[in-house]
């Protein structure tokens, strides 16, 4: 079974709302304090990217329950300019030196699965999942 909820991102305050939603859902899924903080940080990064580079967009949280795998999927979508050079964005080594925060490689590390769909002028959808072990 899957539970889905979402937060629209228009302002910096919505980032906080998205974090809160993510943390609550992570707690419900049974994640411990550290993993809750990681999932929340990933949401924070993604929401911040929407806010900074696309202006507006949406964070959706999917909670996977039931008998099979349990976990949480974050879907961050926007209709912004798209990411021109994904390879560059996914490169290591600049998340700590620059002011860009964890960046995409950081989000990838915080979660178990990570996928980017982006098209110039159309927008970006980033999907990231963490499984409960």
């Amino acid at each position, binding site marked *: 079974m899957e539970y889905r909820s979402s937060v629209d991102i228009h302002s910096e305050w919505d*980032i906080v709302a998205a974090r809160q939603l993510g943390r609550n859902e992570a707690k419900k899924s049974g994640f411990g304090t550290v993993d809750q903080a990681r999932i929340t940080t990933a949401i924070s990064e993604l929401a911040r990217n929407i806010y900074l580079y696309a202006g507006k967009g949406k964070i959706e949280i999917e909670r996977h329950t039931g008998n099979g795998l349990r976990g949480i999927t974050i879907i961050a979508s926007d209709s912004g300019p798209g990411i021109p050079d994904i390879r560059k964005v996914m490169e290591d*080594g600049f998340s*700590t030196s620059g*002011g860009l925060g964890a960046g995409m490689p950081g989000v990838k590390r915080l979660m178990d699965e990570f996928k*980017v769909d982006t098209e110039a002028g159309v927008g970006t959808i980033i999907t990231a999942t963490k499984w409960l072990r």
Partner: protein
Amino acid sequence: MPRIVGKEYKDLLKRYITSQNEENLYFGQQFSREFIEKEISPEEVISIHKNALVDVFPDVPDKVLHSFDFLIEMMIHYGLALREHQSLIRKQEEIQMEMNVAAKVQDTLLKTKKPDFKELDIGFVTEPAKKINGDYIYFLNDNCSEASVAVADVMGKGIPAALCMSMIKFGMDSLRNENTSPCNALDIVNRIVEKSVDDSMFISMFYGKYDARDASFSYASAGHEPALHYKASEGKFVELNAKGLLLGVHKDVEYEEKSVILEEGDFIAMMTDGVTEIRTKQGFIDEEIIQSIMLEVKERSAQTIAETVYERLSQLQDFQLRDDFTIVIFKKE
């Protein structure tokens, strides 16, 4: 450790202890980035935290305070790892700069001019997996009726491959003045490679030549991926195989030469294994995917066909190339 940081940290911590809301955690985390930028080490963070806690909550038990001293000790090696990280990043940036210069030198050194040829539409994409490309395209355009291309893949990637490649370039340069056949071209390059590199370095090469006089495409291969011939009349692809050892193995190799006739709308796709042997997390992709991508855009220009294959396949790999990627399209107009 700056005093202002401690003051600000205390305020944030106090607010969080009073009401555990998300906003305070968000600002706390933003603040922690500044810490990292200011090179405040994790053991210092624990110490700042301890001091703030005592300030916010003066009757904190001694046992708790001792526990923080223990935690500081535990964090010292984490702090060292982080500082080492910062120095490695600087080193990495230096190497990056050297690689950038090398990539620029390689570009200039290996530049080749796409022939501007009536009746034949030529398109290509070549993308390195890392900074430096180990695949190589060389165009020859001897006279008004012939256009040739060599597509090569040096075993391995990066710098060693780049060094070998400049050798191929100068080998090809020596062909410039000879109006040579594909099997002859491979024979000459093979001798140069065999002489100049040691036994552990191999190069595969596909050599194709279009002759406008009879619309024939003749080709030879040194252990390279087969090319694909799209036959517009049948709406199907045919593999172009030709026997021949990799360059650099033996001095004397017989390279088989074959030829096909290109009809209107036909095209030839020459590729390296970075195109055909694409792996995703699920395993190797089926080679038919390449054909079906090209079918979709078969009416478009040679350049669009090449670029579409690149875009789709790089998406399949999550935009992380595992090998250098090169495709050349010769399309009969």
